[in-house]
């Protein structure tokens, strides 16, 4: 079950990308998402694709994991590709069958959009594959820190996120146990029409919720006894370190943006 989890997909390693500070990686990915939209011709899209492949090489992540990450959006990818092919009516006709015509511009746009999709999925996957969830949470907390001024409870959000992540495997085990207990009493979770299957989920959810609340209460007690009083006056065990790698990667990103602006039509 865990292998399919999006957060469980972190692959420890020691590559250049792994060693980057989560803050620089997060900034990089968000900026990259915007930069992707600068591309509008063959050269710029080619450049993006090459750059993405370069990042993947740097991260030393096996392509298999990235392709896996692509699977959930594959339908969307094919769908947008087809939409562009069918509905764009510019340029020369490349294919004709009765009233059904495919134009050159349509094919081009379809390919562009597909590249955009793939590039975005790959780069965000590299982020989650090379950064542990706890580092991502730390990074988000520090990056959102300025928003404390507008009363956004940044520390609480980050703590909530890290506790949620920590309890995912625990609750998964629990679900598994309850499922087996209910199956042992003759509940059939996998067969029958949809209505029956939804009904079978109820006796699974109720005990799960009850135990989750019990856990939450215990955890709150344990946290209070260990002196948790909110974010005020807290120190951090995990130190984030910004070094030359992080500066370089952001400089490279700016250079890429400049190049894209220069090359776009």
């Amino acid at each position, binding site marked *: 079950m865990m292998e399919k989890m999006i957060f469980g997909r972190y692959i420890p390693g020691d590559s250049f990308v792994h060693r980057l500070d989560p803050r620089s990686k997060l900034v990089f990915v968000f900026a990259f998402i915007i930069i992707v939209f600068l591309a509008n011709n063959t050269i710029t899209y080619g450049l993006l694709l090459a750059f993405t492949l370069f990042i993947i090489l740097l991260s030393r992540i096996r392509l298999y994991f990235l392709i896996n990450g692509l699977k959930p959006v594959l339908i969307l990818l094919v769908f947008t590709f087809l939409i562009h092919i069918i509905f764009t009516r510019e340029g020369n006709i490349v294919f004709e069958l009765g009233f059904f015509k495919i134009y050159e511009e349509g094919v081009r746009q379809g390919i562009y959009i597909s590249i955009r999709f793939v590039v975005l999925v790959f780069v965000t996957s590299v982020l989650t594959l090379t950064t542990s969830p*706890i580092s991502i949470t730390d990074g988000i907390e520090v990056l959102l820190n300025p928003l404390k001024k507008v009363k956004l409870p940044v520390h609480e959000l980050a703590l909530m996120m890290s506790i949620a992540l920590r309890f995912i495997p625990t609750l998964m085990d629990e679900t598994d146990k309850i499922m087996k207990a209910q199956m042992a009493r003759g509940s059939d979770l996998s067969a029958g029409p949809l209505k029956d299957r939804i009904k079978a989920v109820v006796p699974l959810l109720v005990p799960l919720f009850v135990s989750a609340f019990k856990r939450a209460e215990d955890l709150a007690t344990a946290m209070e*006894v*260990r*002196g948790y009083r909110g974010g005020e006056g807290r120190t951090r065990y995990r130190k984030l370190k910004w070094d030359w790698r992080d500066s370089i990667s952001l400089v490279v990103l700016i250079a890429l943006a400049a190049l894209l602006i220069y090359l776009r039509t």
Partner: protein
Amino acid sequence: MSEILSFNNVSFSYTPEVKDARKAVQNVSFTINEGEWISIVGHNGSGKSTMVKIISGLLFPQEGEVHVMKNVLTEENLWETRTQIGMVFQNPDNQFVGATVQDDVAFALENNGVPHEEMVKRVHTSLKQVNMDSFLNHEPHHLSGGQKQRVAIAGALAMRPKILILDEATAMLDPQGRAEVLNTVQELREETRLTVLSITHDVEEALLADRILFMNDGKKYAEGSPQEVFSLGDKLVEFGLELPFAMRMTKLLKANGVSLIGEHMTEEELVNDLWTSNFNK
């Protein structure tokens, strides 16, 4: 010997507005001195858990006073007092806050604003004290129950508490995990003379203590060394507490005509008496 913790005629009721309501804790007094190991035993609903909540300042008694390090526990000094009390709870999973072992041990230190360098040092030393220093980056779901409880002990030790409170800390563990945790506590006591208060309904665990407090129905029924308390014998059984295995065995042997001298707390004593019993005839 200086006093670490004491209850002074403490009473507590969950429903103070109801007249003559049953009190969860009734007029309980006791004192724990530095370096002692005290066990509070009693069956479910005897007020053990309520007492823990009172010590940790989660509940405040309606009558009486709680002294920690000779200071009365109040709302004002609550947070400071909590830094001197290390607690380990029953469920190993529900007290693991951090994403990894070291994060969890550091949690209390973070809360109390300990500087980073000091934090790293303390995390390492306290994990070493419970022999979990090779598990620094492990995630909780890859640890056994006993290991998680040892991490919880390390988390408590990191604050350098005056007293370690084990609130049924071994109740949810398998025999191996239980032995692991109890061995760790015993080793800690040998090294540091740490004061321990363990709340339990496991009699074998209670036997390890210097002194036992037997709670029944919110009242302190008996207090004394394990020998003294368990010599009450059938009275304890009446209140739903099991006697130690060696004691039950002694009783059965005596009933079957084996001549034994006195009651025996531990298996070792019993065995010694058994193999020498014929010489004494």
